[in-house]
């Protein structure tokens, strides 16, 4: 949240107001406690402790009530404007804009809050440290002492179980916790003191537990944190602590009448603390001397210091009163001025409304002034109250001075102090009166100045508006309108033109473009046909077998006779499938209709019996697509060895891959191929010298085919022929391994293994040896 926004919130102002009021409230409560302690001097420490605790609790209560009242008040002021009495208005020459009002009361809130947070953070850290003390550096007290503590607890009427620990960290006996309290004794204290002394100390600590002083201490810390800025809070808190110890001492003396032993124990402990010497020494710290005097029934020679404390408290009251008197007025100013800037902003937005709003705002300001006068009265009352308090306190001081007879020097000193105080009081009163008058005058002057400034600003704005009006009547608007109309007319014209242009252009031009596009298309088609023809020529030359044949047979035909689609079908699509007879038949056809019919029949013939139409065709084209996608290298996928095998025989049932000496080898295994047999394997190798796998062993079944040799195609062809001549069903199978002319000779198929084995034996007898061992 932004600070300035927050400061503008009613809560910030109300908090600041409550804090300012707390200055005198705290002082009053402190004074009341002083009076109570004075009256109850003969009463028990328990009573005095309760009185001090009540005063301490009164602080947050007073603060809370003031805050609630301030919050309600700031709301009502913001919502309801004060009634407006008439007032004579004299114009004053404007001297620039009035300074923005600073609501410094609202600034108190964030400053106070940061202080509280800081204080609480420190206390939290302290609490963590205290909690650590009950766990660290402690050991259980001897069991006999633990037992003795139980007996003493019963005597003090402590109901919760108390643990007695020896601590090396605690410098003095301490109580930590309330619901599960532990008493920490400094190491050596149990052994170093007499049994009666230790018992006395333990009773003191048990009394703390019985009285829930640990919880009270925490509450005290919280209140101290809230009112850290007020000495009264600290003083009251100190009184609570002191009376608490007195009360516990009283319990000890009630149970163990030997006060001397107890006093000696306290002194010894205090002394041992000096030996340990680790806590920072404070010059005038504890009230132990007073406690021991009290225990021993010695007369307290410290009346004068107490009187000095009272003087201090009196000064405190004075400071609080001055501070309060000063803070009572600024809220009035800030409240009255708060609506003014908003109004002037509104005026700027509506300059033409003229004098009437100014008169209204003047009336409102007068109303606010009346409200301020009311607040001045309240402030005066507060001052009177503070003065009353001061007088009461002075009387009390005098009384306490009277009690401390026998110390004339100190008495004189105190008296002088009091005289000084009175002088200060008088001075303050006169100053307050002066500042009161001064403030009235100043406020009036400021108000008049502000009004004059507003008036001047408004007349200037009025002039401007009139000037604008004149300009308007001079016909500037007419001209602008004319220009506007002209522009509109021009736009209309442009639109019509555009429409006309569109209708003229439309059909003729589109048609022309269409014709041109058709022409270009035709030319393109021609070019493609020529290109294809050339390409197919080269392609046909580079291919063996059926492809070469296709190239040759297509050559005499002109592209116009055999359409590009048919050429592609014949030479690419079904290159591996079509028989020589079919090819011849297809080429003999004359019309595209016949060719289409032929193709349809071609596929129908190959569909397996009982299957749907074009099952074979679909599968075949799928294989081509697969081959193109997966086996493409420098040549299209369907032209590679693997592509050919894949298209012809379909996907293998198993592919095994191996590598030896940088030669990558794939063996495709088919369980069964129609016409070839069972357990067919084809081998492809990639030596790295070329960019693709090449077939090094054509698909062959160990059972049905037998690969006998591999060599140049011519030699293989003649070998196959000679084998056939001797009755072996030998085929020359082209294998494009390392050289394109390489050809395998396969013998088969044989109907079964027995006849193959017979053929094998016969061939081996003739000196043919298998290329690949089974």
């Amino acid at each position, binding site marked *: 949240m932004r600070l300035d926004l927050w400061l503008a919130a009613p809560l910030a102002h109300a908090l600041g107001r409550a804090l300012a009021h707390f200055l005198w409230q705290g002082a009053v409560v402190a004074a009341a406690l002083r009076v109570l302690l004075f009256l109850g001097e003969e009463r028990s420490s328990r009573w005095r402790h309760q009185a001090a605790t009540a005063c301490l609790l009164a602080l947050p209560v007073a603060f809370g009530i003031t805050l609630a009242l301030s919050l309600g008040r700031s709301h009502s002021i913001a919502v309801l404007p004060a009634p407006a009495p008439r007032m004579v208005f004299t114009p004053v020459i404007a001297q620039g804009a009035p300074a923005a009002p600073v609501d410094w009361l609202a600034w108190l809130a964030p400053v106070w809050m940061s202080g509280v947070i800081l204080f609480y953070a*420190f*206390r939290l*850290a*302290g*609490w963590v*440290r*205290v909690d650590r*003390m009950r*766990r*660290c*550096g*402690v*050991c*259980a007290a001897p*069991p006999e002492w633990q037992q003795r503590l139980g007996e003493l607890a019963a005597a003090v009427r402590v109901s919760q179980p108390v643990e007695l620990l*020896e*601590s*090396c*960290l605690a410098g*003095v*006996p*301490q*109580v*930590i916790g309330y619901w599960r309290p532990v008493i920490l004794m400094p*190491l*050596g204290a149990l052994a170093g003191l007499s049994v009666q002394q230790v018992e006395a100390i333990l009773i*003191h*600590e048990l009394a*703390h537990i019985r009285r829930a*002083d640990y919880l009270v*201490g925490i509450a005290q*810390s919280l209140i*101290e944190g809230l009112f850290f800025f007020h000495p009264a809070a600290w003083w009251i808190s100190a009184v609570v602590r002191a009376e*608490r*110890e007195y009360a516990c001492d009283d319990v000890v003396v009630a149970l163990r009448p030997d006060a*001397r032993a107890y*006093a*000696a124990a*306290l*002194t010894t*402990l*205090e*002394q041992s603390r000096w*030996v*340990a*010497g*680790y*806590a*920072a*020494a*404070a010059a*005038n*710290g*504890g*009230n*132990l*001397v007073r406690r*021991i*005097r009290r225990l*021993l029934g010695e007369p307290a020679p410290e009346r004068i210091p107490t009187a000095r404390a009272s003087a201090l408290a009196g000064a405190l009251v004075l400071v609080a009163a001055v501070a309060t008197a000063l803070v009572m007025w600024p809220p009035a100013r800030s409240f009255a001025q708060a609506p003014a800037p908003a109004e002037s902003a509104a005026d700027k937005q509506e300059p033409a409304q003229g004098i009437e709003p100014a008169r209204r705002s003047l009336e409102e300001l007068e109303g606010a002034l009346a409200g301020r006068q009311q607040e001045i009265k309240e402030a005066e009352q507060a001052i009177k109250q503070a003065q009353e308090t001061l007088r009461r306190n002075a009387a009390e001081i005098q009384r306490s001075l009277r009690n401390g007879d026998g110390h004339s020097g100190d008495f004189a000193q105190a008296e002088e102090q009091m005289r000084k105080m009175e002088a200060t009081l008088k001075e303050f009163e006169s100053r307050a009166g002066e500042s009161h008058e001064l403030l009235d005058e100043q406020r009036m002057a400021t108000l008049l100045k502000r009004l004059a400034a507003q008036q001047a600003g408004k007349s200037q704005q009025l002039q401007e508006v009139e000037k604008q009006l004149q300009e308007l009547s001079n016909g500037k608007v007419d001209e602008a309108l004319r220009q506007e109309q002209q522009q509109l007319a021009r736009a209309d014209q442009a639109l019509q033109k555009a429409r006309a242009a569109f209708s003229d252009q439309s059909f003729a031009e589109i048609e022309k473009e269409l014709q041109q596009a058709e022409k270009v298309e035709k030319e393109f088609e021609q070019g493609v046909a020529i290109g294809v023809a050339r390409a197919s020529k080269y392609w046909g030359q580079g291919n063996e077998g059926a492809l070469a044949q296709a190239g040759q047979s297509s050559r005499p035909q002109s592209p116009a006779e055999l359409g590009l689609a048919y050429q592609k079908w014949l030479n690419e699509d079904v290159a591996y499938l079509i028989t020589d007879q079919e090819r011849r038949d297809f080429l003999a056809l004359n019309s595209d209709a016949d060719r289409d019919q032929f193709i349809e029949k071609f596929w129908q013939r190959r569909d397996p019996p009982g299957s749907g139409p074009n099952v074979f065709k679909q599968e075949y084209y799928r294989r081509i697509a697969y081959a193109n996608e997966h086996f493409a290298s420098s040549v299209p996928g369907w032209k590679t060895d693997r592509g050919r095998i894949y298209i012809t025989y379909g996907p293998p049932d198993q592919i095994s891959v191996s590598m030896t000496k940088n030669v990558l080898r794939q063996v495709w295994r088919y369980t069964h191929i129609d016409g070839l047999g069972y357990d067919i394997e084809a081998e492809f190798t990639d030596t790295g010298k070329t960019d693709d796998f090449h077939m090094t062993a054509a698909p062959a079944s160990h059972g049905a085919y037998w690969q006998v040799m591999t060599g140049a195609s011519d030699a293989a062809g003649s070998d196959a022929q000679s084998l056939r001549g001797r009755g072996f069903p030998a085929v020359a199978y082209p294998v494009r391994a390392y050289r394109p002319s390489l050809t395998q000779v396969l013998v088969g198929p044989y109907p079964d293994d027995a006849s193959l084995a017979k053929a094998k034996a016969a061939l081996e007898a003739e000196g043919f040896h298998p290329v690949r061992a089974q």
Partner: protein
Amino acid sequence: MAKSNELPRPTDAELEILTVLWSRGPATVRDVHSTISRRRPAHYTTVLKLMQIMTDKGLVKRDEKQRAHIYSASRPREWTQRQLAGDLLERAFAGSASSLLVGALAARKASAAELAELRKLVGGYEDKP
């Protein structure tokens, strides 16, 4: 002096053992263990191990003359207290902590003059018949 500065600050568990040794004087591991286990469950072996580590660190001394080794704190508790209190954080929050504590003695120490007066008061009383 240099050597005493080298002595490490005891951990919380070590401080507990040291507290027992300061409170009871030289003791065996069994003694220390029985004292600690009165407050909280502790394993004998854990205490033994800790005390062996502390011997290595120099925090405790071991007397091996008898069959059961006798351990004692190598520094008086005042020395260690001062060492612990030297911690900046400890010092920063000691004041804040002390105002939360309740006990027989004030959070602040008495001055030397006050102490002298106290001794006079108590002693003077003792002198009376």
